[in-house]
């Protein structure tokens, strides 16, 4: 692989986020490039989710600077960011298609074929009339991913996308994400299951106590240092 450093899509420097007396992020400095898939790893409470939520504009940083696609205000670029949280961000009482149609409206997409297309892409059936509340956990996760992909965002922020998803579906999802990355998108995945992304992720990022401790291409190295 040649080292042509693409322009960074997300730049953060000395990002600090405090909730009252608790510091969730304690000075994160990093750059994320387009066309890459990053896996963010770390123990519970390491600040992974907070970092992702800050990128998604749901948290305001306490201090430090954050620039996404050259903009400092999230409102200007929200059209280009897709966010998938740990909860499903879907209405339990509506079917998957109905959910996506509603969210498509929010992004100004008034077209059913696009919704059907993403549902197919995550391996579900658009004609399914069951409400999302009755889906299995794995189906919910996939529908949630479809919601994040709906507006074809430049940056994809995923929080634990593979939890409770069976092995087969996970492989499918990883393949889909890798394909998205190959289209020049930036994909950030917070996960506990790093091994699932071995081979797919361009970089592994280890966070500890609100800081990025290590960035590496080789997961093996990270596991050794994490244990030590």
């Amino acid at each position, binding site marked *: 692989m040649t080292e042509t450093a693409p322009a960074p899509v997300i730049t953060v420097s000395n990002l600090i986020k405090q909730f009252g007396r608790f510091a969730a992020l304690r000075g994160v400095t990093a750059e994320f490039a387009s066309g890459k898939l990053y896996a963010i790893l770390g123990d519970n409470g390491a600040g992974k989710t907070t970092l992702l939520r800050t990128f*998604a*504009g*749901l*948290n*305001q940083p306490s201090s430090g600077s954050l620039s996404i696609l050259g903009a400092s205000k999230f*409102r200007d670029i*929200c*059209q280009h*960011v897709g*966010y998938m*949280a740990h*909860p*499903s*961000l*879907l*209405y*339990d*009482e*509506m079917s998957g298609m*109905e959910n996506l149609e*509603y*969210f498509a*409206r*929010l*992004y*100004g997409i*008034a077209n059913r074929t696009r919704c059907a297309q993403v549902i197919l892409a995550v391996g579900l059936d658009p004609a399914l009339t069951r*409400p999302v509340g009755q889906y299995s956990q794995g189906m919910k996760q996939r529908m949630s991913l479809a*919601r994040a992909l709906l507006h074809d965002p430049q940056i994809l922020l995923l929080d634990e996308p593979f939890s409770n998803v069976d092995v087969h579906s996970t492989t499918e999802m990883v393949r889909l994400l890798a394909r998205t990355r190959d289209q020049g998108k930036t994909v950030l995945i917070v996960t506990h299951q790093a091994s699932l992304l071995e081979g797919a992720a361009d970089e592994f990022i280890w966070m500890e106590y609100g800081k990025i401790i290590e960035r590496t291409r080789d997961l093996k190295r990270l596991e050794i240092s994490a244990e030590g």
Partner: protein
Amino acid sequence: MTPPTGITRATLLKDLRLEWRSKDAINSMLFFSLLVVVVFSFSFDPTAEESRQIAGGLIWVAFLFAAVVALNQTWARELRNQVLDAYRVSPAPANSLFLAKVLGNFIFVIVLEALMTPLFIAFYRLRALGPAWQLLPLAMFGTWALVVNGTFFAAMCLRTRSREIMLPLLLFPISIPALLAMVQATTAILSGESSARFWIVLLSTYDLVFTTVCLLIFETVLNAE
């Protein structure tokens, strides 16, 4: 790009659809106000001529309490699975959401009033001695006043501890003028002793002022953290 009104409509239709499927809010509101009617009838003789004087207050207090049930429900719906975050990361304007929620609650409370009013009339043997048509604009303006502030405060309480208790604590003091206007106007119309016009004008001004201010600061409140 969907225009803001389009998003309001989509959100409103979505809310109505959710309510239609679960019927959480409307059922509990109906039963709640029914309980209020029955309980109040024990505390005084509902058929006495004097009860005409307090019927206006009774009706609106019942609706106010019932509205709180609906108001807590609207945002609870958005908190389940944290769907509100999905709205916040989208480019859709915050005010569209606010208007949709206000309209949704307005519809719920108006439906409740339409269903409950015949019951009140039957139980309390009410009959308007004044101009009865004025009850219609009164109900519209009054309900809007309750609902616009209520929706705003319910959104505010989203991120407080014990949010279901906080809503009435914030909503009731500020609603006192509106409530007073509704009660007095209703009593005036039912007893036919005085004109309700002043109260209806007051209510519409109240609606105008509070709707404007809520729209101005809702985005700040929604994204506050």
